[in-house]
């Protein structure tokens, strides 16, 4: 199948290095301590953060740092065909773990010993790159909840199809079976915290593809920062400062 | 056994019920020396046993068996399946034993009892080993359709000797089973011939009349508890929990040994004890056969 036309356009009309339209919104879940919606093209996820709060299950309490938990769930209607069993399958468990580890690495957990932070991400629409979208939404939600972090962690995926590195794969490109690199990145520290790849790539091409994803992360980080500034300004305004 | 002498001294002072709760083993051993059990039975006697056939109207065959207060409800539902390639002219029996939470304080919803799958396995092993049912009788159209008999046994009240009661109810349900009259329709599906126009259907009726299975050698079982040199037939739940060694003997009507089941236990079974258990089972088999025959003849009169 041809994923990049001779004119250099992808199936959805994007250039290879082009990201989908991104949109973020802080405070989508009123009752949560922090929450955010993050959209990448048709992929749309909500993240809600509860905590830091008392540890619910005493046996899980950690004495010198906060316990970070994460649950990833997909809505029945999030995929093209209706999902029958949305909870607790292997894929969700794996993604929950990936998100938890990524977020845990950037939260200053030692500042909140004997407490618990819950991150819940809910996929409303899945069109490739849910993993990245979830991490981005979780970052915003954590920031909204005022949880101390080393840096904003952002994530983006890239792939390699028809001998072309592609940024931010959508569902069709993702399911083509080619290499798919997901990167989690700390923009200020300039460090990679998450790196996952399916399939295989020669090492020199891999570096290019990873670099592309990192560029994507940086772009998202800039956008996220803007959104947060905007949000803070609004809060300021509302407080009448 | 390893108890201090205190209970001996106390026994004259505390009341019987308290003594029974505090020193259950002592309590039983005192009875055993008198060759009687707390419920008044001699050691080798089983509890009162009843069978009621046809307890479930929605099933093709059913029976309610009670041994003392242990109650089992068994029902058979017949469904049609495509037989497997290796045995195209044989039907199938699927046996499942359930312990719903109503039957005992130790079973909670969502957490099935540990023993339930074990009894379930023992039942299907016993019924297939005894050769009671000829699976060929369950065939409808060779290679195309055969009966699948779903036998589900529910324990309604658990008070010891679960396997004995379950097997008895299973056997009784099979003896009560009436296989419905069916025919093959145009789509190659099996349909039930309804009573009123059954005669008129000239389509190839597969089995024309409701029929019963011929039960060859019927297996009957007796569970005994071994304690020191005593053998207690048909233990209650209390007896099973206090004296942990149980032996279950299954004999069929031709006196073949279908199963001799002793899963561990602190007491070792010597040849003489095994022979005693087998002898008790022989006796019990005659009683059970009679109870089953009476239940069946009672049905025919109705």
């Amino acid at each position: 199948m041809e994923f990049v036309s001779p004119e250099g356009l992808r199936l959805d009309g994007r250039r290879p290095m082009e990201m989908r339209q991104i949109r973020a919104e802080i405070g989508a879940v009123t009752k949560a301590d922090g929450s955010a919606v993050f959209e990448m093209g048709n992929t749309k996820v909500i993240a809600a953060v509860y905590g830091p709060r008392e540890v619910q299950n005493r046996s899980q309490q950690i004495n010198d740092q906060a316990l970070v938990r994460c649950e990833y769930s997909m809505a029945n209607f999030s995929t093209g065909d209706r999902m029958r069993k949305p909870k607790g399958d292997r894929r969700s468990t794996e993604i929950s773990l990936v998100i938890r580890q990524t977020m845990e690495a950037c939260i200053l957990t030692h500042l909140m010993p004997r407490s618990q932070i819950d991150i819940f991400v809910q996929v409303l629409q899945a069109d490739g790159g849910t993993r990245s979208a979830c991490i981005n939404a979780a970052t915003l939600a954590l920031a909204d909840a005022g949880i101390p972090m080393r840096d904003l962690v952002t994530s983006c995926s890239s792939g390699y199809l028809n001998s072309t590195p592609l940024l931010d794969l959508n569902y069709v490109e993702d399911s083509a079976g080619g290499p798919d690199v997901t990167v989690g990145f700390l923009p200020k520290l300039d460090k990679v915290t998450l790196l996952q790849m399916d399939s295989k790539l020669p090492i020199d091409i891999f570096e290019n593809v990873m670099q592309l994803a990192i560029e994507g992360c940086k772009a998202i980080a800039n956008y996220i920062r803007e959104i947060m500034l905007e949000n803070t300004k609004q809060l300021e305004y509302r407080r009448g400062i | 056994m390893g108890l201090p002498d205190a209970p001996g001294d106390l026994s004259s002072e505390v009341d019987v019920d308290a003594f029974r709760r505090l020193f259950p083993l002592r309590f039983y051993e005192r009875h055993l020396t008198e060759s009687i059990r707390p419920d008044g039975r001699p050691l080798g006697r089983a509890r009162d046993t009843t069978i009621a056939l046809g307890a479930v109207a929605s099933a093709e065959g059913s029976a309610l068996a009670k041994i003392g207060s242990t109650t089992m409800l068994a029902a058979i539902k017949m469904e049609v399946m495509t037989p497997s390639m290796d045995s195209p002219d044989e039907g199938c029996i699927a046996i499942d034993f359930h312990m719903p939470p109503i039957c005992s304080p130790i079973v909670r919803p969502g957490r099935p009892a540990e023993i339930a799958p074990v009894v379930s396995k023992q039942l299907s092993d016993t019924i297939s080993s005894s050769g009671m049912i000829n699976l060929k009788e369950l065939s409808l159209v060779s290679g195309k359709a055969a009966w699948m008999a779903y036998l589900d046994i529910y324990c309604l009240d658990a008070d010891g000797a679960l396997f004995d009661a379950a097997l008895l109810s299973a056997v009784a349900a099979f003896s009560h089973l009436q296989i419905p009259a069916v025919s093959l329709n145009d789509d190659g599906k099996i349909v039930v011939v309804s009573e009123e126009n059954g005669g008129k259907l000239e389509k190839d009726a597969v089995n024309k009349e409701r029929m019963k299975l011929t039960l060859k050698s019927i297996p009957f079982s007796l569970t005994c508890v071994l304690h020191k040199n005593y053998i207690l037939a048909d233990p209650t739940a209390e007896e099973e929990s206090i004296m942990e060694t149980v032996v279950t003997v299954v004999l069929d009507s031709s006196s073949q040994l279908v199963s001799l089941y002793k899963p561990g236990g602190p007491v070792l079974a010597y040849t003489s004890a095994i022979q005693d258990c087998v002898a008790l089972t022989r006796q019990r088999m005659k009683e059970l056969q009679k109870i089953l025959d009476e239940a069946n003849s009672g049905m025919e009169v109705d």
Partner: protein
Amino acid sequence: MEIDRLDGRKANQLRPLACSRNILNRAHGSASWTQGDTKVLVAVYGPKAGTKKNENPEKACIEVIWKPKSGQIGKLEREYEMIVKRTLQSICILNINPNTTTSVIVQVINDDGALLPCAINAACAALVDAGIPLKHLAVAICCCLADSGYIILDPTKLEEQSMKAYAYLVFPNSILSVRPEGSLKVQGEPREHGVITSGTQGAMSVDDYLNCLERGRAATAKMSTVLRRNLQPQIASELSKAG
């Protein structure tokens, strides 16, 4: 009347036995037991503090987890778990470590008949390896009954399937005692003749079963010497190390 066995064994002949202990590093005790092509690996963890619900906290509790070679566990495996658990309970001295749980994990590596006896033998060796206090050892055997009434020992999977009936039997091993021989007799029978565990499959006459018992006893007596010989040198070497 002789029966020809596919592998050329005599009726009473067992397959080659092999037992190795202490093969897993992290387990408190472990053993693998091989009978021909049937191989079972057992790991023992414990005693750990506390017992599960519904277990008597005044005694040590034994938990058996059966892991089949492949697939998920079903009713058959549940039954095996229960039989192994009850058998091990009867050979352990349960009042020494009250309110503890010992986990016994049975991993089937290959099944070529006589699986359950093999697992019991392996579990017993693993308990010894873990240093769990035992009253005596348990030795398990499978006896197969042919249509002609002929009995063969330690059947392969193929033999198990083609025979009329078979019985799993577990006996205690003979105890070397400083006391005079007579004290070990119970009801006029030597103690090692008592059956710890019995399970059967298929119908047979009572006499056939009693024959199986006799053959089983004879064979387990030999097996128990093998087992003893296998356990002894290691104990001796451990002692010398410790000393």
